[in-house]
């Protein structure tokens, strides 16, 4: 087999305690090449409609991309997909690192976990074979201990370990997965799903090389070598390598789109405390994912007067800096770094944790919550000590954590008092730290994305403003030729978003990081096409890759439709339709009618029914998806 994949999926039935390997042919892979497409297909096929997200009927699929593991910068990603316990909708989160490439080299393209083990287990995968092992002694232990214990047990110093933390064991609905301690599938609670199956970890080791799977190994290797040399010759990848995501904070603040005080304001008056200069003072180095020359992962280590942080885990990345910093009105980068480290150690998604705490802080400000509701915590904006304690309580689901572990949507339902208007979530997923009032295409993505308010479902508006900019030029081969202002929601912007989302989805199928291909970074569209051709031998075009991406989006949408979601769920929090209260964009809001019109136009472009948001039969026929995952008995989560 030489089309860039192993052609094999590992099925693990945790109820029965059995494993099996299933093979698929090349025609199947050309339709569902990997990553999001392969995982979404398996979820639709395996999970009965209406399954409890934390029950044995939910299915957790871990799927590597088509190019994952290739000697190609940023080709490191895998998708974790299941029904989300936070939203009840399609749950999805990606990570880079080393686990995905290792799985590919172990001869497996995806792992499908079904059922529930009666006791804690971990799974050992080596060169196409799998064992279910007892994890009783690992349950409740910290991630570094678990990783070391597994490596010692199997006698493999470089066994790659994917695991949950304490939050996953305690079924916090926004618990994450981590691999190699530094790389996270953060969003939508995939850690809770794995915890609900009593699986603490999955360790993998492979002795193969990706190039053994490639149609033209020489050509693919040459592309990888050439691209690795260009990382520092392109401004976007140079920036990622030099500063990483912490370099974003100041620019977003200057543009008035740095979420501040639970998205009330768009700039933070004390940004110097969390901006690049402050971060640089605690930075101890940068790290890489597998075979990636970008090396964007920030590492911090310091012994401060009040807080100390080690370099055991990753970050803080921009999302944690803004989430725990400006959005909680905290201007101490050392405290932010400690909050980030705590989330990683406990296995919590930093974005949902920070968003939920910011929501609680605003509830305190409005008198809707008091310390008596929060286990004695004085969770005011700016109170960093209370934030740190809240994080631990969330992971343990005790004291304030009993309430905060619900996430902002369910908290608002319980608290009432109009708090739903400032619960900054879509479908239950807390907004990432990007302000749609200053870049409205991001708002379209937040609203319509099947998993909820994720920021990595398309490319952000500022790239498409000036046709002479580096970013815009990188998008032209996708067919994006007309610029659009960042706050415009007209037909041009809708068309840009439609293309942008399909290309982004294709990246998730191919296993490429958001920080790899144009228009966000240095790998040009033609390079991606050439890499896929070399890996597979397929005569793919940009149009086919866009269709592959679109097919994956539609699989996710089909899942949501089956589970009872419709157009009414594709909406932004009310706050985003009200004026920003601070910063350069003070007074700017998203007009509700204009936004609804843009959603209708986007549905029409996609071939979805404007009334319901469901793919039309013609759309499914066009994408070859008619009849996939048919089922009934839908229930909302």
């Amino acid at each position, binding site marked *: 087999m030489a089309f860039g994949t192993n052609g094999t999926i590992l099925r693990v039935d945790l109820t029965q305690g059995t494993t099996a390997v299933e093979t698929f042919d090349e025609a199947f892979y050309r339709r569902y090449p990997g990553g999001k497409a392969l995982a979404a297909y398996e979820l639709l096929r395996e999970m009965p409609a209406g399954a409890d997200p934390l029950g044995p009927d939910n299915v957790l699929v871990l799927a590597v991309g088509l190019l994952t593991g290739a000697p190609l910068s940023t080709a490191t990603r895998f998708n974790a997909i299941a029904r989300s316990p936070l939203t009840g909708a399609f749950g999805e989160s990606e990570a880079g690192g080393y686990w995905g490439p290792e799985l590919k080299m172990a001869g497996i393209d995806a792992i499908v976990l079904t059922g529930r083990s009666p006791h804690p287990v971990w799974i050992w995968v080596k060169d196409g074979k799998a064992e279910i092992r007892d994890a009783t002694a690992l349950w409740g232990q910290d991630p570094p201990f678990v990783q070391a214990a597994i490596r010692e047990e199997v006698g493999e110093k470089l066994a790659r370990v994917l695991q949950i933390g304490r939050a996953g064991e305690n079924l916090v609905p926004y618990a994450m997965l981590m691999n190699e301690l530094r790389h996270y599938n953060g969003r939508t609670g995939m850690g809770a799903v794995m915890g609900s199956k009593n699986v603490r970890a999955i360790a993998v080791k492979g002795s193969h090389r990706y190039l053994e799977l490639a149609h033209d190994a020489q050509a693919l290797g040459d592309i990888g070598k050439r691209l690795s040399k260009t990382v520092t010759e392109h*401004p*976007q990848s*140079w*920036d*990622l390598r*030099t*500063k990483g*995501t912490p*370099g*974003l904070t*100041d*620019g*977003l603040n*200057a*543009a008035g789109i740095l979420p501040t005080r639970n998205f009330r304001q768009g700039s933070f008056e004390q940004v110097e405390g969390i901006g*690049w200069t402050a971060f640089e003072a605690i930075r101890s180095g940068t790290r890489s994912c597998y075979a990636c020359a970008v090396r964007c992962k920030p590492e911090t280590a310091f012994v401060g007067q009040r807080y100390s942080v080690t370099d055991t885990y990753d970050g803080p*990345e*921009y999302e944690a800096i803004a989430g725990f910093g400006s959005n909680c009105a905290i201007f101490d980068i050392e405290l932010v770094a400690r909050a980030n480290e705590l989330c990683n150690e406990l296995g919590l998604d930093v974005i949902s944790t920070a968003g939920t705490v910011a929501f609680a802080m605003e509830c305190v400000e409005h008198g809707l919550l008091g310390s008596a509701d929060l286990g004695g915590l004085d969770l005011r904006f700016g109170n960093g000590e209370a934030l740190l304690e809240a994080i631990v309580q969330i992971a343990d689901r005790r004291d304030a954590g009993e309430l905060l572990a619900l996430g902002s949507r369910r908290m608002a339902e319980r608290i009432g008092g109009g708090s739903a208007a400032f619960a900054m979530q879509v479908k239950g997923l807390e907004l*990432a730290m*990007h302000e749609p009032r200053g870049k409205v295409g*991001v708002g379209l993505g937040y609203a319509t994305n099947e998993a909820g308010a994720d*920021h*990595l479902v398309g*490319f*952000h508006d*500022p*790239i498409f*403003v*000036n*046709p*002479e*900019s*580096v*970013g*815009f030029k990188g998008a032209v081969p996708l067919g994006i030729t007309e610029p659009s202002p960042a706050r415009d929601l007209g037909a041009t912007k809708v068309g840009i978003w439609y293309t942008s989302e399909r290309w982004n989805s294709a990246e998730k199928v191919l296993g490429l990081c*958001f*920080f790899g291909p144009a*228009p*966000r970074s240095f790998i040009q569209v033609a390079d991606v096409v050439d890499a896929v051709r070399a890996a597979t031998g397929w005569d793919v075009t940009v149009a086919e890759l866009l269709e592959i991406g679109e097919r994956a989006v539609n699989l996710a949408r089909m899942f949501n439709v089956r589970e009872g979601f419709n157009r009414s769920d594709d909406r932004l929090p009310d706050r985003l339709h009200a004026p920003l209260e601070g910063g*350069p964009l003070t007074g700017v809001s998203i007009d509700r009618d204009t936004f609804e019109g843009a959603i209708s136009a986007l549905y029409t472009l996609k071939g979805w029914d404007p009334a319901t948001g469901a793919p039309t039969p013609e759309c499914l026929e066009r994408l070859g998806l008619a009849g996939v995952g048919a089922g009934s008995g839908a229930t909302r989560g």
Partner: protein
Amino acid sequence: MKVHLWGELGFYGPGKRSTFEFPIDNEMPVAEALRRIGVPAPDVAVLGVNGVAERVDDPAVIVTNRDRIDCYPPTSGG
């Protein structure tokens, strides 16, 4: 003139430095100053002159050696 090229714009600074002094011999439109530094104007999303937001293409925005300019790129998430 004090210059801070934020984010990816640091790529265009002398020796890829993000902060530096750039002497200019007399006052000039900010667009001309950027051209002399080597910063492509289409990649400047936000411009600050002495802490005040200005348009790059506004010929009335004049800078001198006493000024500080901050240039920010378009940002696309991460």
